[in-house]
């Protein structure tokens, strides 16, 4: 095992030594060397521009034949970098351990969207696969030229191109292009981010020929972390760096009117940075910065943010004017069918604001030197942060280098991008590199929140008990009140506190299912944020954005209809699910759980502790997941133990079953935490969930006893996202199991002991 080279030791425009062989001149814009041209393929001694239409932007071959993959997404700890290496190694026919991957660095990769929407493999991997296939095609053509044999009589084994009939006629990748660059144009679709796609002429392998893809290869980033040899974003230091801390108002929307810098005069080299609502401090030593932030005397403006009583939050959502409405799937005539229904079943569900509450609050290091900006951050989207830094610092984007470094967990648009912008303002003002880390209360209290919402669902039944119409409406705060990335100052606390013009976006989502109700409508409505500027309740993407809340409602409701018809919950779903892959995951989960057909609830239990089982399923894009939960409910305390889970998961072709298994298991546990515990509390001044006591999450004694996972592999179907999908059905699976155990339907999350106890009484 080798110690990871500290990113801090890379200097801008320095040489990146990959595998000790290839020297990549980062950002070089020199002309190609025509001497290396071969027919159809070109090798260059200097790197072509880092643009999406260049093969060299994704793949390079070192002088020793090792392959470098440059990836514009990030691995947030789910093993994506291993999966991408497998896909690249597979297409190029090189051994896995002869590949390296460089991820999330704006100097070495193009904007493939960062970590976003579980598209690491689905979109990012698709591009890397096509790039690797094209690299192989080019190399085989070069070999054909060199060996004087037709390309179709050549085979590649372990990075060596040889005659299919005579392995002694061979030339290696290293000999063909090692240490030089592909200068090959790709057919780029002109898009950046997740939709970026730039194939070459090559046809990728048939999945039936895969030898590396599909293997459960382990992650190689775990050992360095376990042996304390890997740097996180918060561990990076540069010479001359000072430490920053931010100061937030005790009452949201208050701004400083008087700041007494003399109140921190006793702290060595402590300085105040104050610009309108932006207030921070820096000091040479970290503890001094923390003390200065606490000690600084600040007079704040009078403020009374328009936060309702928490108890009336859902009434507020019901009554608030709809800012945007969008209707999704609509079949038949829903309203007319309800008028003639024999029976109507209706229910309404409520989901609270939730916090990313990452293990460590946001941290970023920004260095500004000679007009060039370097930033180390655990952001999910380095390339968008590059744009944001250029904007907030008023420098050309090409002068900004963002280096993604692993951070403290990442589940969406967290406080990470706010922290970059704050650090940039501090660094620019004090003229020194600033490492800014938020404090716990800022990480939990001031991060962008998963939106709170209500969901109204109704079903029309005919006289025979068939569902003839279905109507689903979500109403809540927007998932993009602030955007999914920090590319614009308006979406960061720095921009908002310094007064930039705001533009709150509108977005929510629809249930993902294939229930074939003849008349069906799904819709959403968004409402304005409670406080439009610098709010601790601004809402944004959090893991499976709006998926847990929507499917808490939709899959609880399906269960309610099944119960009303005295039908088994699995049988009821199978009666209406239309998609064969949906049906398959429902059946697979039921089989794994040993599901006994009967309606819910059970009526055979007495005593304080009762047990139950529940199912929920969902589509998430092309991915399907069914989850069965077995729970125990202590009726005297209201505590729930989600004891066993049985999960069936279909995300098409499985690239790495080891990574997939962990991704599913961790989704299930985190979603259990969100279902049972998580609710952001606030009062009429600000958010009061500020630490692990006021924002409790699942703890070890309540971890499940068992999570059994069926991973359905479909080599013929393109791989789709698995980073979030298994979170989606968990809330309803647990809630349906609680109903099975107790006969009581809980329609408000979280199912905390207090909520459950009061629901049962």
């Amino acid at each position: 095992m080798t110690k990871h080279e500290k990113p801090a030791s890379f200097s801008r425009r320095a040489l990146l030594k990959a595998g000790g062989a290839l020297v990549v001149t980062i950002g070089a814009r020199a002309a190609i060397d025509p001497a290396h041209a071969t027919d159809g393929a070109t090798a260059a001694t200097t790197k072509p521009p880092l643009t999406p239409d260049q093969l060299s932007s994704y793949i390079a071959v070192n002088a020793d034949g090792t392959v470098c993959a440059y990836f514009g997404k990030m691995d947030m700890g789910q093993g994506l970098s291993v999966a991408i290496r497998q896909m690249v190694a597979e297409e190029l026919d090189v051994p896995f351990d002869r590949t390296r991957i460089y991820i999330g660095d704006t100097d070495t990769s193009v904007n493939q969207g960062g970590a976003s929407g579980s598209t690491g493999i689905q979109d990012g991997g698709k591009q890397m696969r096509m790039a690797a296939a094209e690299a192989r095609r080019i190399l085989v053509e070069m070999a054909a030229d060199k060996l004087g044999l037709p390309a179709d009589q050549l085979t590649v084994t372990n990075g060596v191109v040889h005659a299919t009939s005579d392995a002694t006629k061979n030339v290696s990748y290293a000999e063909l292009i090692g240490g030089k660059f592909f200068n090959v144009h790709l057919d780029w679709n002109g898009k950046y981010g997740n939709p970026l796609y730039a194939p070459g002429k090559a046809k990728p392998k048939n999945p039936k020929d895969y030898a590396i893809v599909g293997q459960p290869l382990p992650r190689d980033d775990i050992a360095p972390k376990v042996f304390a040899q890997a740097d996180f974003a918060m561990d990076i230091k540069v010479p001359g760096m000072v430490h920053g801390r931010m100061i937030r108002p005790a009452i949201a929307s208050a701004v400083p009117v008087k700041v007494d810098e003399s109140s921190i005069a006793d702290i060595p080299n402590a300085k105040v940075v104050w610009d309108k609502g932006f207030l921070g401090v820096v000091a040479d030593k970290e503890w001094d910065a923390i003390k200065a932030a606490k000690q600084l005397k600040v007079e704040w403006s009078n403020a009374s943010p328009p936060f309702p009583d928490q108890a009336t939050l859902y009434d507020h959502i019901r009554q608030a004017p709809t800012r945007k409405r969008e209707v999704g799937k609509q079949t038949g005539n829903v309203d007319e069918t309800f008028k003639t229904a024999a029976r109507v079943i209706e229910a309404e569900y409520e989901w609270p604001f939730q916090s990313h509450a990452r293990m460590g609050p946001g941290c970023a290091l920004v260095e500004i030197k000679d007009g060039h900006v370097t930033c180390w951050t655990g952001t999910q989207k380095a390339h968008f942060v590059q744009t944001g830094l250029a904007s907030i610092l008023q420098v050309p984007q090409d002068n900004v280098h963002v280096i993604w470094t692993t951070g403290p967990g990442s589940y969406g648009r967290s406080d990470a991008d706010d922290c970059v912008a704050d650090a940039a303002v501090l660094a620019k003002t004090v003229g020194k590199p600033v490492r800014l880390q938020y404090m716990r209360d800022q990480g939990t209290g001031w991060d962008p929140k998963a939106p709170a919402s209500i969901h109204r669902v109704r079903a029309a039944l005919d006289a025979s008990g068939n569902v003839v119409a279905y109507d689903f409406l979500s109403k809540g705060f927007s998932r993009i009140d602030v955007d999914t990335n920090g590319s614009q100052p308006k979406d960061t606390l720095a921009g908002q506190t310094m007064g930039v013009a705001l533009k709150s976006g509108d977005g929510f989502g629809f249930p993902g299912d294939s229930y074939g109700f003849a008349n069906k409508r799904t819709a959403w409505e968004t409402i304005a944020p409670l406080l439009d500027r610098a709010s601790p309740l601004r809402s944004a993407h959090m893991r499976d954005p709006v998926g847990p809340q929507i499917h808490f409602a939709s899959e609880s409701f399906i269960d309610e209809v099944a119960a009303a018809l005295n039908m088994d919950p699995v049988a009821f779903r199978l009666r209406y699910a239309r998609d064969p892959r949906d049906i398959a995951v429902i059946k697979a989960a039921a089989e794994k759980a040993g599901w006994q057909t009967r309606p819910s609830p059970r009526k055979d239990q007495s005593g304080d502790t009762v047990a139950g089982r529940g199912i929920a399923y969902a589509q998430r894009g092309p991915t399907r997941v069914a989850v069965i939960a077995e729970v125990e409910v202590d009726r005297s305390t209201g505590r729930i133990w989600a004891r066993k889970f049985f999960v069936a998961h279909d995300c098409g072709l499985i690239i790495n079953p080891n990574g997939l298994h962990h991704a599913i298991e961790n989704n299930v546990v985190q979603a259990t935490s969100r279902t049972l515990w998580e609710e952001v509390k606030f009062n009429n001044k600000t958010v009061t969930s500020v630490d692990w006591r006021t924002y409790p999450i699942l703890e070890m004694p309540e971890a499940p006893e068992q999570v059994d996972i069926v991973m359905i592999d479909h080599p013929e179907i393109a791989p789709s996202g698995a980073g979030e999908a298994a979170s989606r059905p968990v809330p309803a699976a647990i809630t349906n199991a609680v109903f099975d155990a107790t006969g009581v339907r809980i329609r408000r999350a979280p199912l905390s002991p207090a909520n459950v106890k009061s629901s049962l009484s």
Partner: protein
Amino acid sequence: MTKQFTLNVNGSDHTVEADPDTPLLYVLRDDLGLNNPHFGCGLGQCGACTVHLDGKPTHSCQRPISAVGDKKVVTLAGLGTPEHPHPLQTAYVQEQVPQCAYCINGWIMSAAAFLRDKEKPTDAQIRTALRHVKCRCGTHMAILRAVKRAAAMMG
């Protein structure tokens, strides 16, 4: 006012200048360059900063350097090395435990002290012993597998 302190960390003595109220966490990270204990909450609620003081798991964010004295400090880096790993480190790699890995100081340092004092623990004992350590990524199932694997290696 800063004062001079001598700390024994991972078997070596180090002399540092620091304010007496500086939490050990910042001395380890910023003065000694031992980045493994992480700032998670600064409140003693999560465990991300856990080190051993004379073998006892301690929140380094809560312990002023002036209250460390001559107690021996061991961080995750001092628990084991790739060449001589602690069984928990071996088990963590074998079980592929972490997602983000930011929390691992809390789990490994707490579990190391627990397994040292408790042979062949039951599932319930492990869960109770680790009840105050936080993992936000939800890797609890893998943590339990790894602690049991390490317990088997040690027992």
